[in-house]
């Protein structure tokens, strides 16, 4: 297999600016079909902007993104979701008034084929699809140990649980690529370890490639196959975790210039 076929995502030379501020300034990377690829960098480096380009929320000024052989740029968010990219958000973006069950069910939205007419009567196709979806959703609820929260409106749940529900909603989409934006941001040690376990389980049981944006270096270095470091929208280095940890440019990006005396 050539390198190109083994990649699920190719992100080439993408540029994105907001009225002169360069959020992404020529970043390229590829993600393999069963890879956990991490993107790290100081605050404001452009990590979340990369995710927003990938999920169609932002349109970059230049560059190309291809996912599973298809060009992504110019596609709308829901079209990209249909292609098989799921994501979570840095600040939980759940549907606060809906229950855990309904939120995760919404993840299966693009697997539902019935329209409003069928929904009005709740017969045949609508009922069948709803029950099938529910069975899949229950598997995910089981997988993420959310049983006890099933009927709670997510707005009332603790932050760590909300993060898990958001992951569940993304998994319900049965994606071909999962984007996790700071899955352990703001969590305590125990919650972080739980989340790390879920991420490992996703890789092992579901074999979904993951792009991970995270500030928790311990988590990144333990889980990631390869790491991309960005700073001020520019790529600093790409490599396996052990290379990145001792890379002089990375240390400079995080800690600043070493003063020569």
């Amino acid at each position: 297999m050539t390198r190109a076929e083994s990649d699920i995502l190719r992100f080439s030379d993408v540029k994105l600016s907001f009225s002169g501020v360069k959020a992404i300034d020529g970043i390229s990377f590829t993600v393999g079909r069963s890879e956990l690829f991490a993107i790290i960098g100081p605050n404001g480096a452009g990590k979340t902007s990369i995710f927003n380009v990938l999920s169609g929320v932002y349109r970059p000024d230049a560059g190309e993104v291809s996912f599973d052989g298809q060009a992504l740029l110019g596609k709308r968010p829901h079209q990209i979701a249909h292609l098989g990219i799921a994501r979570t958000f840095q600040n939980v973006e759940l549907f606060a008034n809906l229950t855990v069950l309904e939120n995760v069910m919404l993840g299966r939205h693009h697997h539902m084929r019935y329209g409003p007419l069928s929904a009005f009567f709740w017969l045949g196709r609508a009922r069948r699809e709803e029950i099938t979806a529910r069975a899949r959703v229950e598997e995910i609820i089981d997988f993420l140990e959310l049983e006890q929260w099933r009927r709670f409106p997510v707005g009332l749940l603790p932050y760590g649980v909300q993060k898990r529900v958001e992951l569940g909603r993304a998994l319900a989409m049965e994606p071909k690529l999962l984007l996790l934006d700071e899955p352990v941001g703001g969590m305590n040690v125990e919650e972080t370890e739980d989340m790390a376990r879920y991420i490992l389980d996703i890789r092992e049981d579901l074999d979904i490639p993951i792009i991970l944006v995270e500030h928790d270096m311990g988590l990144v270095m333990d889980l990631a196959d390869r790491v991309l470091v960005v700073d001020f929208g520019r790529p600093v280095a790409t490599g396996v975790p052990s290379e990145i940890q001792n890379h002089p440019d990375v240390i400079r990006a995080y800690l600043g210039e070493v003063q020569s005396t």
Partner: protein
Amino acid sequence: MLTRDPTTSRPLLHTSYRSDMALFDTRTKRNAVVLIVLFGLSLPLLLPDPDLRLLSTASVFAIGAIGLGLLTGSAGQISLGHAFFLGVGCYAAAVISGDPDGRAIGFGITEILIWLPAAGLVAAAVGVLIAPLATRLRGLYLAIVTLGLVFVGEHLFEQWRVVTGGARAGRPAPEPVLFGYPLHVDGLFTRQQQLFWLMFVLLVIFALLARNLSRSAVGRAFNAVRDRDIAAGVIGVNLVKYKTIAFAISSFYAGCAGALLYVIIGHVNPTEFNLLLSVLFIAMVLVGGVGTISGAIAGAFFITLLGRFTEQVGPMLPLISARSHETPNVFQMQNVLYALLIIGFLLFEPRGLFGIWFRIRNWWKAFPFSY
């Protein structure tokens, strides 16, 4: 050995997804709905005609309120243009069922099973035409645009005399004939009895359809658009499509309500479809409980019956006159009351009557540990 069906004694225990996702997931709920419907159906035999007329009006308002509830409550698109869609539906029905030899145009098809769906579909089609505005605007901006719609509509209805009969004269309302049986003239039962049965049965049908819709993938997509539109897009909900569907369905309900509302009065004047009517629907949805079907129905009945209540009680109060040309009069008092209700519910009980019911129910559920 267990001989009793465990689901009888434990109503919340479900043994299949199908029973868990059923429309009435507990026996109590189903029985309660059946009882209410039976009670409603028996009302024409118990109440005098003027009261039936009021309840028929409330039922039709409830159909319209369910429509606005789906758009504003479920899908989060604030619309002040509901009265406009009521007007569109009303005139579509009036034209189809109108007297071919009358002053305003009419095709003489009085079968309600034809003009009612047609009225809904015409209103829905206009809703789809308006929807592109909604897909580009949200919140207050959408409210302002739909507000404009009411004024454009009012002008149009007043000027388009061929269809509406003009501002002073108006035109006869659509005539409900079901399978050749005219419901709007005294027959086996009085006119008001027959009309109440018609409106009540239609309300039950429209309510069940809406309930099904809101627990389906479509209803969830509406909620997703309301709660977080960016996240909705990212998980695969086509925002433009679902806002359009919401507008179409809401307008369908409004169109049907508009067509039915003036059947009760028998005559329709184009000045009826004004901002006040739109605001009245907003009040119904807010007072009843945003985002719930039963709330919209409760709100519609509450507001309609409140109107009658103030008309009866108002004149007994000092200073309040029953004549509309004196100030202060009951009609002004009504409007003030609606305003106070909207403000009061928004401040103190945002979940409306449904929220109050919800709290009472939970209190009893937890009794005697109700804290």
